[in-house]
């Protein structure tokens, strides 16, 4: 059911007449209403609920006068009445277009008393004011109920999250029951019960005809038992086939992922080989650096002193010669030894150390050297004497070249180390991504699925064999039955027997048909949900629960995501709502084309109140990208927080009309910015200041622009929106918009 127009007149916060014109759904589908917070977005949903079903939002019919706008009631004189209504021009699935209005007539007999009659549904075929409204006798109420069953209302016209955010979390909102009602699933069961009753009745008639013929009745009883067993087996076989098909689909999904992970695993193996090579390079480079460092150290240690000692060679030579002359070098006694002798009484030769000897030893002590110094000097003397000086000089001469070579080797090793470390760093994330663990897990899952399929096929073969035997038994029983049939009234009994057989077939086909129908309903919903959810997200997948037909998210390991992000959950909700409507229409078409008498269902309009609730900026954009084109008609009710640049820019090319809900109030808001909305380069303030002391607010709507008309027409439209006085006596205090129907050639 599609809206051509929706009008609220004195309904709740919408004083005066406020009209939303919808574009032709063949052209465009998206209409946006921008409204500051607490100005009546949800009232639009309530208004539609009221129009369709007479819902009074908690009020009784006697207090329905409370739905009339406060300030309008305040202005109503005692002894008079005031009307409020919600009216729509609707296009029904059978292409009939009708204007329907649900109206409240509130009377004010005295200053402090209000009365109201039960709100009435009125209709007229044209939209012309010249045609009078007629009271509905129930016909059009049924028509509305059929097009949008009340049970499904909240699924198509929802506030923020459908079913108060419980959807998808398995809590309260099963959609299965309303769906069953809409798709008339119960009729299959009722039909089966009817057929069963017919079989019983025919069997009783047959028994009556058979009279005392016990043999015939006994065969008939046996046949009935076999037939029941056959029916059970056939149902079991169907269930097994369905299970096999699902197992096959599940295995196919696993196979796909396995192929993907397998190729990743293969790639991972190659990456791992590369990693090993780089690690070896890294190790070798480190060793080369260590070796070069060590060699440089050795080089420095062994040669660095040579150039420094070089000038000292001459004086050192002379000094050593002097030491030798004085027989002090090589010294075979050390300073410590002499000191120890002086501390004792005797010399090492056994003679007593007298004063003269002590004086000589003391003098000698002054010429002795420390043991290490002595050794070094001896080594130096040896070098000088043995002609090693030239070797050392040569070594010192080669020092710069060796140092340069070692430095170059070290530099190369450092560069190799860096390359190896960079390569390892680059490889690690790739290796982690191509998880070998998931590969092993998938292999196990596929093996398990294969075993289950194999078991299923074995069971199917057993059932098929059992069915074959039962069919054979039934064939022989039919022969027995014909033989046992009494001669008297044989024709009549034969007719009854054929009718029973036909009814049995009918019952069987009803079972089969219902199974296929249920699977089709689930299958289509699943396919549509996957299609729509897949557009907006990645990673997680969407599934329809077979028990309650609600959607849920599964992760890569096929586990239910129990705590999804608000944005992703909202995408799932929207995808489900749209998939649900589409599936409903598709099944309806299938039922009709099959010859089943059903009420025709058509395209569905959606009114979505704040669909970006709970979404972070990324998901807001994702939802904005998701919504256009998903339904033939969509009305979005958005507050300022739902209208950021990203949403506006994404939706803009798809929007056909934008309306603003203007709040008339004497109160200066804390956050004036929340009333300013940007659209097409303009900023529109949706707050209309009024004089203090007057009733606090009234809401009205105005068109911001018309997206698909040329700029001149847009300007005309912007400037043409005027507000006329609500009451001449209160001019300019409370204003309501002129009806905007018919603008721009529409």
């Amino acid at each position, binding site marked *: 059911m599609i809206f051509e127009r929706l009008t609220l007149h004195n309904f709740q916060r919408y004083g005066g007449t406020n009209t939303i014109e919808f574009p032709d759904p063949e052209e465009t*589908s998206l209409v946006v209403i921008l409204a500051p917070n607490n100005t009546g977005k949800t009232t639009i949903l309530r208004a539609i609920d009221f129009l369709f079903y007479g819902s009074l939002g908690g009020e009784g019919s006697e207090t329905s006068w409370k739905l009339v706008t406060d300030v309008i009631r305040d202005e109503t004189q005692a002894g008079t009445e005031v009307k409020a209504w919600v009216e729509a021009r609707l296009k029904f699935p059978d292409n009939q277009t009708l204007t329907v209005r649900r109206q409240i007539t509130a009377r004010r007999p005295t200053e402090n008393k209000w009365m109201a009659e039960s709100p009435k549904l009125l209709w007229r075929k044209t939209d012309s004011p010249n045609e009078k409204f007629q009271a509905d006798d129930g016909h059009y109420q049924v028509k509305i109920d059929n097009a949008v069953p009340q049970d499904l209302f909240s699924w198509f016209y929802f506030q923020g999250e459908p079913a108060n955010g419980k959807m998808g979390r398995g809590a309260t909102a099963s959609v299965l029951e309303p769906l069953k009602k809409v798709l008339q699933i119960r009729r299959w069961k009722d*039909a089966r019960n009817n057929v069963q*009753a017919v079989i019983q009745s025919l069997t009783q008639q047959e028994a009556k005809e058979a009279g005392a013929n016990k043999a015939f009745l006994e065969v008939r009883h046996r046949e009935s038992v076999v037939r029941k067993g056959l029916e059970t087996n056939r149902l079991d076989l169907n269930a097994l086939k369905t299970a096999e098909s699902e197992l096959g689909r599940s295995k196919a999904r696993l196979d796909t992922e396995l192929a993907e992970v397998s190729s990743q695993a293969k790639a991972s193996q190659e990456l791992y080989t590369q990693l090993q090579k780089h690690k070896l390079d890294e190790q070798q480079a480190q060793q080369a650096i260590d070796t070069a460092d060590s060699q440089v150290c050795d080089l420095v240690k062994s040669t660095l002193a040579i150039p420094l000692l070089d000038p000292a060679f001459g004086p050192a030579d002379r000094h050593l010669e002097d030491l030798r002359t004085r027989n002090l070098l090589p010294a075979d006694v050390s300073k410590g030894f002499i000191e120890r002798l002086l501390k004792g009484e005797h010399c090492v030769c056994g003679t007593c150390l007298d004063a003269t000897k002590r004086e000589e030893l003391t003098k000698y002590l002054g010429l002795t050297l420390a043991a290490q110094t002595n050794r070094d000097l001896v080594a130096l003397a040896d070098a000088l004497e043995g002609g090693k000086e030239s070797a050392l000089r040569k070594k010192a001469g080669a020092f710069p070249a060796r140092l340069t070579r070692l430095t170059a080797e070290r530099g190369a090793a450092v560069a190799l180390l860096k390359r190896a470390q960079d390569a390892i760093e680059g490889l690690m994330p790739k290796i982690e991504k191509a998880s070998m663990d998931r590969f092993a897990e998938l292999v196990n899952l596929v093996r398990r699925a294969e075993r289950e399929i194999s078991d299923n096929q074995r069971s199917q073969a057993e059932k098929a064999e059992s069915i074959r035997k039962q069919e054979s038994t039934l064939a022989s029983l039919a022969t027995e039955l014909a033989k046992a049939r009494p001669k008297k009234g044989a024709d009549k009994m034969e007719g009854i027997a*054929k*009718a029973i057989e036909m009814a049995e077939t*009918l019952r069987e*086909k009803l079972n089969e048909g219902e199974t296929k129908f249920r699977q089709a309903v689930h299958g289509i919903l699943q396919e549509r949900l996957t299609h729509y959810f897949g557009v907006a997200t990645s990673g997680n997948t969407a599934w329809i629960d077979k028990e309650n037909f609600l959607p849920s998210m599964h992760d890569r390991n096929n586990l239910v995501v129990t705590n999804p992000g608000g944005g992703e959950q909202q995408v799932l909700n929207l995808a489900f709502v749209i998939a649900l409507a589409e599936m409903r229409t*598709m099944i309806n078409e*299938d039922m009709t084309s099959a010859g089943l008498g059903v009420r025709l269902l058509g395209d569905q309009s959606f009114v979505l109140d704040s669909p970006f609730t709970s979404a972070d900026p990324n998901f807001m954009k994702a939802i904005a990208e998701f919504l256009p084109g998903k339904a033939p008609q969509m009305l979005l009710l958005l507050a300022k927080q739902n209208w950021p640049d990203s949403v506006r820019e994404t939706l803009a090319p798809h929007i056909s009309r934008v309306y603003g809900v203007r709040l008339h109030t004497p109160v200066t808001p804390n956050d004036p910015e929340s009333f300013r909305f940007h659209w097409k380069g303009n900023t529109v303030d949706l707050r209309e200041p009024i004089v203090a002391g007057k009733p606090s607010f009234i809401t009205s709507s105005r068109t911001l622009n018309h997206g698909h008309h040329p700029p001149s027409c847009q300007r005309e439209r912007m400037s043409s929106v005027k507000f006329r006085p609500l009451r001449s006596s209160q001019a300019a205090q409370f204003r309501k918009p002129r009806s905007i129907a018919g603008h721009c050639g529409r």
Partner: protein
Amino acid sequence: MPAKPRKAPKPTVLRDFFGSLDDKTKGLLLLTLNLEADSEIPPKAKQEKLEAELLRRVK
């Protein structure tokens, strides 16, 4: 350009199912199911109507 609703391929599960039946069974099945869609006919009358139809067809 404004996005247009994407039309999915139409499912034909039921049409295919009924199409797979012989005319006699198909006719009776539709009759049975369509009888159930009529909420104004009482259950007993539905049973009698189906029974009479079955007996009529086997003659």
